[in-house]
């Protein structure tokens, strides 16, 4: 029978790997998620018959599964598309917390003197799982705007964080070597929870996706460590897969922003620059605003229009309105494409998800490298709620904090229309010269509102 369970775990592992593979391609992605879910069902199915239930054990499992399934389903179903990033953070935090608790329970079972091979992975799992748990909650709070999205910094912060980390290492040694301090692993857990908070606080809201991805990889590793403690093959393989692929994904994400991971995590990005942006904004430069009718005429009689969506589009839920406008223009023979910056919105892929929801065809969604040479041929570029990803400072202002980030070459277009709620700078907190460009026309207001007006005006044009 043991053999059957072992083979079931192997099958689950294979399904996870296949699932990940399928998730990496647009055509098979949805099946990939089902494949991985099937692996999960098999792994769980092979686990239940192996359990030796105590009376209380059976009851708490039943209660726990019902509550968890209800929370998970309702949370995942009810969440708005714009809030998905923070939902992923919450689910990730739950996984990290579970890994830490499993390790604590194992340590309780091992008694005061665990061997190194039992103790070390447990302690690792407690620390990493707890950091992931509390860090994810802070990431959630920042994205949900329960707290400020700007980096929270204070003098000597790195030193304090270093001291917390040092204290954790001290407790790790205490737990493994001395193990006489009562509840030493609970103290360890509390310290790690504090470190998770302290680690995410100085990171700006715009960088949360990278942080969530990193914490996701952390949880994977914590799960793998729990697998070592429990001698469970499925946990080791699945946890490690997530740890490894999650680390790579984290790197890919920070690459897409044109920054190093170290800069994302320790650069307090968006903090100092806020002040600089505010000063630059006071120079008294003027911007050109246009009427909806003028813009409608401009769009209706163009040949090539490129739409650049950003987070403002997501906030305003304007994806359907923007598609309506695009459809209308296409009927008039205008060529319409969407330029998707890798980090537009709050997560890579955020814009694709939203526009796909509005049934915008794949072929019109162009990635940055694909479309960057097309901007110079575009008659109008319509920037809907995006800012930093089109800021030429990234190309020509070496002192700028976003210098070196790959941007969309919107400045090369013949006309630029910015739909923004205000002149406020974007996430990075820096001023955008493009807003003051003579080629630029501003249309202030809620993106959906403006687009709806524009649609009506184009119909009349």
């Amino acid at each position, binding site marked *: 029978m043991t053999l059957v369970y072992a083979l079931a775990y192997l099958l689950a592992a294979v399904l996870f*790997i296949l699932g990940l593979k399928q998730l990496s*391609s*647009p055509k098979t992605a949805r099946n990939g998620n089902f494949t991985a879910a099937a692996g999960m069902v098999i792994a769980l199915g092979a686990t239940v018959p192996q359990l030796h239930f105590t009376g209380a054990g059976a009851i708490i499992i039943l209660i726990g*599964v019902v509550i968890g399934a209800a929370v998970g389903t309702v949370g995942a179903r009810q969440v708005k598309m714009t809030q998905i990033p923070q939902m992923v953070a919450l689910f990730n935090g739950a996984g990290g917390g*579970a890994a830490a608790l499993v390790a604590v329970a194992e340590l309780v*079972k091992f008694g005061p003197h665990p061997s190194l091979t039992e103790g070390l992975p447990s302690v690792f799992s407690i620390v990493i799982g707890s950091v992931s748990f509390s860090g994810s909650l802070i990431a959630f709070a920042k994205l949900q705007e329960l707290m400020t999205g700007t980096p929270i910094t204070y003098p000597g912060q790195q030193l304090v964080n270093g001291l917390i980390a040092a204290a954790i290492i001290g407790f790790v040694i205490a737990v493994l070597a001395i193990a006489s301090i009562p509840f030493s692993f609970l103290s360890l857990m509390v310290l790690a929870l504090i470190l998770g908070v302290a680690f995410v606080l100085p990171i700006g809201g715009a960088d949360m996706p990278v942080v969530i991805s990193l914490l996701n990889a952390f949880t994977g590793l914590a799960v793998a460590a729990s697998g070592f403690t429990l001698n469970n093959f499925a946990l080791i*393989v699945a946890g490690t*897969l997530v740890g490894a692929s999650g680390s790579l994904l984290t790197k890919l994400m920070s690459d897409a922003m044109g920054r190093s991971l170290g800069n994302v995590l320790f650069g307090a990005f968006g903090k100092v620059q806020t002040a600089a942006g505010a000063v630059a904004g006071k120079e008294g430069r003027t911007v050109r605003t246009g009427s909806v009718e003028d813009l409608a005429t401009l769009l209706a009689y163009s040949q090539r229009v490129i739409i650049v969506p950003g987070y403002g589009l997501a906030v305003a839920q304007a994806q*359907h309105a923007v598609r309506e406008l695009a459809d209308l223009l296409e009927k008039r023979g205008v060529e319409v494409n969407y330029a998707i910056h890798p980090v537009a919105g709050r997560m890579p892929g955020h814009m694709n998800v939203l526009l796909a929801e509005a049934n915008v065809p794949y072929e019109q969604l162009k990635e940055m490298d694909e479309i960057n040479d097309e901007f110079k041929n575009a008659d109008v570029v319509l920037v809907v709620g995006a800012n930093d990803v089109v800021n030429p400072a990234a190309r020509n202002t070496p002192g700028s904090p976003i210098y070196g980030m790959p941007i969309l070459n919107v400045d090369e277009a013949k006309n630029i229309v910015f739909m923004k709620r205000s002149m406020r700078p974007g996430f990075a907190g820096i001023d955008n010269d493009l807003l003051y460009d003579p080629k630029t026309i501003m249309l202030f207001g809620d993106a959906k509102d403006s687009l709806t007006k524009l649609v009506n005006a184009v119909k009349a044009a």
Partner: protein
Amino acid sequence: MNSELLNEFTFFVLAVFVGIEVISKVPTMLHTPLMSGTNAIHGIILVGALVIAAGANSPVTIILGLLAVVLATTNVVGGFVVTDRMLEMFKGRQTTRTQEPVQPK
């Protein structure tokens, strides 16, 4: 190092390589769903949570077990459902559904 630990360590190292290799070529637009999908997969910690919860026999282990099962189940169920919701959106125009009403703000 006993042979079981050696086996486990072997799986671990191989899984690191597979994990990196398997997602090496992923388009940017799938970064978020992929993150969410891997997030669901580490919900496998539910297996561990079930093991500790099943054997719970003291107030401390009962509380630990219950919390672990709740959190891990939330991770698994929420993770897969939210990933599916994201991927559901990736459809071409040929499969156009009835237009969803624009969500009121």
